[in-house]
């Protein structure tokens, strides 16, 4: 992965920059010891590492503003950081950049169930947001699998999704307002606990901007009343095509489940060996979950059963108890862990039109065979967000490179069939150079003009999202 050459002038000024940061922040909020900054050298895209110039860990919006003003004055790039679970290298630093971590800002500021929102500091974990309102019978809907660790700040920057977004939408659909600190250190309130934007929908473009427009320090999030209950079914098929057709028919019939998850044979076998969820040994399986009271669940599952039966499933297993429901989800939830037991893997994140599912799965199989690598598929089938996992051996010379080349080809295929490079993980450094496969120069110019407005000096997370050649002139 190519990264820009660090600016020698900044590296040379390190002592002065650190001193200026120390002058405005508490002593324990600035880290420059190379041993300690090592903890910030990468995110979950761990194949790529660089130690940052320094790390700042502010405790308040005003400390964030103070730190940014110093960096702005010295022309130092800043990489905002949440929990570092990005799979795209979004939080990876460069040697001439200051990491600004918001993890110390995790307070709940306001819980308002009458108006159905919660206001939190952006360093709170996703799961702890739901935990703060659970007692009142509410939850925060977007549920990335990393929710125990990842922070709302990272979720907003990546516009993260989760298994339940088919019904509840992704982060942007549940975000009402943010406190944003610009690179120049200006504190802005954008949106709030009311429905419409007063002017342009700035919140909409801030969400998903991968830490390139400003540092989010607080967020107003919509919360929802918890459903009375939920129940999954497991449906096994002897072909991926038929499983895909069943998904289409369920959606076509007007039932909108909360989740439709898909696993193929390599993935089923791996999870069975790893966690013994008791899955049938078949070509493809779907986990479909519906919500409501008992009678409502029965009504929806009755319809889904009728539809599934038309596709001659090898198995239709409805959870009869909480225990059985847990077992159905167990395999899906341990899928990534199971694949990790077999080998190293790269997790892709392209989205395709649901109608292109069978043909795309077939093509991926062919491409993998040609590359001599194994690919397992586990993904959100209701919305076409695929997660092909390419297995490789990090200790084998050239394997990572072959795996990345196959990954790039698969993502180009996703774009070709009408989809996109990333459904929820973001572009970061990982898919940066592939952006040209999806966007024209004019498309990217329009996006970069938004950054020109928020961060004219291109100091915030500058070497991400856009192909390096495309952003070169702006990064200076």
């Amino acid at each position, binding site marked *: 992965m190519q990264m820009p050459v660090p600016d020698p002038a900044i590296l040379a000024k390190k002592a002065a920059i650190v001193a200026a940061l120390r002058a405005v922040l508490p002593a324990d909020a600035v880290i420059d010891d190379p041993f300690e900054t090592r903890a910030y050298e990468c995110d979950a895209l761990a194949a790529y590492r660089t130690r940052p110039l320094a790390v700042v860990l502010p405790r308040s919006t005003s400390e964030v503003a103070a730190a940014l003003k110093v960096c702005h004055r010295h022309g130092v790039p800043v990489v905002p950081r949440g929990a570092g679970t990005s799979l795209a290298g979004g939080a990876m630093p460069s040697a001439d950049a200051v990491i600004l971590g918001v993890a110390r800002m995790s307070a709940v500021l306001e819980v308002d169930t*009458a*108006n*159905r929102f919660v206001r939190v500091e952006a360093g709170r974990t996703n799961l702890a947001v739901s935990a703060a309102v659970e007692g009142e*019978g*509410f939850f925060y809907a977007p549920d990335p699998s990393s929710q125990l660790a990842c922070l709302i700040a990272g979720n907003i920057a990546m516009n993260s999704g989760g298994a339940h977004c088919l019904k509840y939408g*992704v982060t*942007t*659909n549940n975000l009402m307002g943010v406190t944003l600190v*610009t690179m120049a250190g200006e504190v*802005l309130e*954008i949106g*709030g*606990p*009311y*429905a*419409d934007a*007063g*002017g*342009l*929908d*700035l*919140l*909409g*473009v801030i*969400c*998903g901007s991968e830490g390139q427009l400003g540092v989010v320090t607080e967020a107003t999030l919509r919360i929802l*009343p918890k459903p*009375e209950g939920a129940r999954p079914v497991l449906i096994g098929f002897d072909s991926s095509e038929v499983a895909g057709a069943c998904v*289409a028919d369920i*959606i*076509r019939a*007007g*039932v*909108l489940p909360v989740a439709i998850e898909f696993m193929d044979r390599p993935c089923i076998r791996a999870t069975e060996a790893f966690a013994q969820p008791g899955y049938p040994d078949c070509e493809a399986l779907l986990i479909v979950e519906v919500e*409501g009271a008992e*009678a409502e669940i029965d*009504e*929806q599952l009755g319809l889904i059963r009728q539809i599934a039966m038309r596709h001659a499933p090898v198995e239709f297993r409805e959870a009869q108890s909480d225990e059985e429901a847990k077992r159905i989800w167990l395999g899906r939830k341990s899928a990534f862990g199971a694949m990790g037991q077999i080998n190293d893997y790269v997790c892709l994140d392209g989205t395709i*039109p*649901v*109608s292109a599912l069978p043909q795309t799965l077939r093509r991926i199989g062919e491409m993998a065979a040609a590359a001599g690598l194994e690919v397992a598929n586990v993904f959100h089938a209701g*919305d076409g*967000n695929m997660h092909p996992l390419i297995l490789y051996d990090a200790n084998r010379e050239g394997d990572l490179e072959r795996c990345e080349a196959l990954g790039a080809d698969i993502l180009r295929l996703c774009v070709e069939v*009408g*989809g*996109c490079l*990333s*459904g*929820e*993980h*973001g572009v970061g450094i990982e898919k940066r150079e592939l*952006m040209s496969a*999806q*966007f024209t120069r004019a*498309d990217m*110019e*329009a996006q970069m003009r*938004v*950054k020109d*407005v928020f961060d004219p000096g291109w100091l915030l997370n500058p070497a991400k999202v856009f192909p390096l050649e495309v952003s070169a002139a702006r990064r200076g």
Partner: protein
Amino acid sequence: MRPQDERELAAAIRDAAGPLRVQGGGTRGLVGAGEVLDTTGLCGVRLYEPAALTLVVGAGTPLAEVEALLAGEGQRLGFEPVRWGPLLGASGESTIGGVVAANVSGPRRVRAGAARDALIGVRFVDGRGEVIKSGGRVMKNVTGYDLVKLMAGSRGRLGVLSEVAFKLMPAAASEATLLLEGIGVGDAVAAMAAALGSPYEVSGAGWMPGLGAMLRLEGLAESVGYRVGRLGELMQRFATPRIERAGSAALWRDLGEVAPLHHCAGDVWRFSVKPSEAPGIVARLGVPVVLDWGGGLIWAVLPEGTNARAMAAPYSGHATLMRGCGVASEPEAPGVAELGEALRAKFDPRGIFGEGLGA
């Protein structure tokens, strides 16, 4: 000017010597000066896949045509586009691009989100005459910045939409409305908060003068039946609900179109606020109102020239003068307004999309 495709649209904008007035169905009526750029030639369905809940259409396609097409397949736009023509004294048929440009969303917004939430892709031509796309036709897409949201509600000030793509919803198999007749605004807002905070998936919560509070439930028949019962019990402490089934759809059309205020003379104001602030605002305004979104949306007609913002304050959110002497949006906080202005200057450096909605 009435371009027939994106190329002609781009050429028209590139070659424009002075300001343009972008017009879809023209239901808003034109504001400002300049040559009219009519978008209705940019019409037609590009792609409709019911099994993927996906629709891509030309921005100049009439809303009614889109709705009829979807209804034929048992689907709909979840955000429930509404028609304000009768309220605001306009005629004509909205285009889907106009709906997007104004982020027009109806009562179901409380459950299904706004137009901007259903919008998954746009193609547009900016003020430089460049064709730009963002998003696409798939529901989950975080590739690059989300200009889709930025364009929704931009009121034609950043560019002219040529194509829009939506995530659709299945139409409900059945619906019912619980009416809490005769209750006042204060109780209604409390009842709506309780209903929207319940697990019964309320898909509309409003209040109309002379009627009272209304709560909508939609879904499979048995499920609606069950929830009508449970929500009814929960609402007993406010009033004994009357259940309306056959007349339910008409009630919500009236609410969306703000029917009770159609014949009031004066300035039409629209407040987007924190729902619990509604009773206070309504009391301070002292005129008949219509409430939607659980109280988060307030419609009021005030004597011409009234400074409604001063009268209603304090409130969070914002107020827009929709019909009166011009249209006026609430001024934004200084730093935020500057960002908006700077974005406009980037997308439309010559300022040819001048006034947009005039707001």
